[in-house]
């Protein structure tokens, strides 16, 4: 693995290996001294063209726990806004000797361009590009699903047979695309639930089921429900007018106490954050014992450690002490 650009690039074994490595690394994180020497002397650049404090500090924490040097590069003026071009930014990072570039960008395909242009030699990790992919989010979601829903000894296991509902704005969601790809690869059965206006034309070719009706899907007893963030501006006509308003959205697609009660007791509630409480998820659902939303954040650090480790240390397993 030279880069991590898309969840679709991972086959089952590669994905399971990342999850297993994340589990091993997570086991070291209960120690008083959390830092491992594995990436000492290596430089990881967090190149963020789009604000995302959560994702950036998750990657920063992961890299620092592996003793890498971390440079945060908030490149607000991308070539989209006619500032410095992606190419010049990339050449600058190359000149500074970056070993890995973690890139977040509003344009779909920007990490792909960075990895394949020849501008940088570094490993490229996609930390979210436009409405395309966010592979480490899918990996942390898969890790969380496996921890809760796959036996007492999950190492080496995939997600075969699990049923996961992904609910919300699929059209604009890189999280949904990444999860459909990865969870399918790992053997889970994904059902996307959204109003038709928030599903892309062409979704019928994705390896998943699609429903417009949340209540019907919940009655089928999924093992997990993943709620996607819905942006309020999508309701205005200027924002596309994708649905009539927040109340109608909550009534039809929000996870509230009533719907929570329909879920099987073993089912978990997930959300990539940040949540719109009262819109796609109610406080009762977000704070219920079935919700694993805070744990997802912790798992994100472990999964990102695993990805950086496998990309930069070439998977020399003995380094994991």
């Amino acid at each position: 693995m030279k880069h991590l650009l898309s969840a679709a690039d991972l086959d089952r074994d590669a994905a399971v290996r990342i999850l297993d490595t994340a589990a091993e690394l997570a086991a070291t994180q209960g120690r008083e001294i959390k830092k491992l020497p594995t990436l000492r002397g290596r430089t990881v650049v967090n190149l963020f063209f789009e604000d995302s404090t959560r994702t950036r500090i998750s990657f920063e924490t992961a890299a620092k726990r592996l003793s890498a040097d971390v440079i945060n590069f908030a490149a607000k003026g991308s070539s989209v806004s006619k500032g410095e071009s992606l190419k010049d930014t990339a050449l600058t990072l190359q000149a500074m000797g970056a070993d890995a570039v973690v890139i977040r960008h509003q344009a779909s395909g920007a990490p792909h361009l960075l990895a394949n242009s020849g501008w940088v030699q570094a490993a490229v990790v996609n930390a979210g590009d436009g409405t395309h992919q966010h592979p480490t989010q899918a990996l942390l979601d898969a890790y969380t699903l496996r921890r809760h829903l796959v036996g007492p000894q999950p190492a080496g296991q995939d997600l075969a047979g699990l049923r996961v509902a992904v609910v919300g704005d699929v059209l604009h969601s890189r999280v949904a695309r990444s999860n459909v790809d990865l969870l399918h690869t790992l053997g889970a059965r994904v059902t996307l639930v959204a109003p038709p206006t928030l599903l892309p034309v062409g979704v019928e070719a994705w390896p998943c089921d699609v429903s417009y009706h949340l209540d019907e899907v919940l009655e089928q007893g999924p093992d997990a429900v993943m709620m996607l963030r819905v942006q309020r501006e999508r309701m205005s006509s200027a924002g596309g007018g994708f649905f009539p308003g927040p109340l109608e959205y909550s009534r039809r697609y929000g996870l509230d106490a009533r719907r929570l009660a329909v879920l099987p007791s073993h089912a978990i509630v997930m959300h990539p954050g940040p949540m719109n409480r009262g819109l796609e998820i109610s406080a009762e659902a977000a704070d219920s014992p079935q919700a694993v939303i805070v744990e997802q954040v912790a798992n994100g650090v472990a999964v990102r450690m695993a990805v950086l480790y496998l990309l930069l240390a070439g998977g020399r397993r003995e380094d994991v002490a």
Partner: protein
Amino acid sequence: MTDYLLRGARPLGGEPADVLISGGVIAAVRADDDAPRADAHVIDAAGLVLLPGLVDLHTHLREPGREDAETVESGTRAAALGGFTAVHAMANTNPVADTAGVVEQVYHLGRRAGWVDVFPVGAVSIGLEGERLAELGAMADSEARVRVFSDDGKCVSDPVLMRRALEYVKALDGVIAQHAQEPRLTEHAQMHEGVVSAQIGLAGWPAVAEEAIIARDVLLAEHVGSRLHVCHLSTAGSVEIVRWAKGRGIDVTAEVTPHHLVLTDELARGYDARFKVNPPLRTQADVDAVRAGLADGTIDIVATDHAPHTVEDKDCEWAAAAFGMTGLETALSVVQEAMVDTGLLDWADVARVLSSAPARIGRVEDRHGRPIAVGEPANLTLVDPAARRTVDPRTQATASPNTPYRGRELPGRVAATFLRGRATVLDGKAVLGA
């Protein structure tokens, strides 16, 4: 002026003949001319196909305004190398070609360059803003003698403005060439909306945004009894609508680009912005439909939509990149690959779709797209259909590198081009001969 004897050329792909070019016209077409012509430049044209000089109804020469991407000189040299003897230069320059002054400037730049005849297209609306009609009459009456009007790059989306434009050009023997793109349905659109756009996360440009405008416009053209030309038709549905309209007797013509005959939206997967174009590359089903439409005459012509862009405007994120690809130097080869080598068209058909029909639509059929016969102006293209070449933007004449065929092997090579008897291309190289 040098006389040229094309020995053994096959006019329109037919039986070999010796064709003598003298005094700017075709002086002789003889089956077997053994008589030595010491005074003529003899070209061994055995096996080569002789076509009327190609006519492009849709070229972006970028001058005035974006001389870093193309100039009239570089663009028309590229045209000559591609076998063209006439191009219609689109109006979306800076300033926009919406006055007699600008169209005359472009016309004179073309004359000065001398590679092909440049026929400026006039803007339909002032500044391409889609609000008020430009002075179409002044452009028609100018030295540039404009007959084709288009806001290409933008759609004349206001139905009332489109109606007025269609009506108004009836007095000018003009035609409205519509860039069919419903603007609200294509806000932020990046590529064809379908399976590929859903997977790679680029905002979709739905086929219906093209088809809805074409459907409206053919009905408007019927209602006011005017002439409509549909630019760069790209979808199977558009072919069906034009077929229906022609069946009703509506005066509509349509063009397809070379790239929509061979390339599909699958190419967007690598996020290489050389494949970003407007209208976007569609699906294989659309490619099959436009080929069939061109073969059965529903689509009248092939036009390049040659759209040069600088490296900076393409070597960036897909969403930030400009729409468009170059095409003048590859058009004939692509048509050969897609239509001739597949048996869908013969060379006489190629002469129709790339020369006589566009000349007629552009109202330059008195000078271009003529039969290969004695006394006709010697606007001619000699093509070697057996040759194969690998496309390399560094060896092209266009000032921009954004060819979608880089590294691709294409059939056919333009050996020579003649503009009114004067060689502009000889042995595949641009020359400005006597």
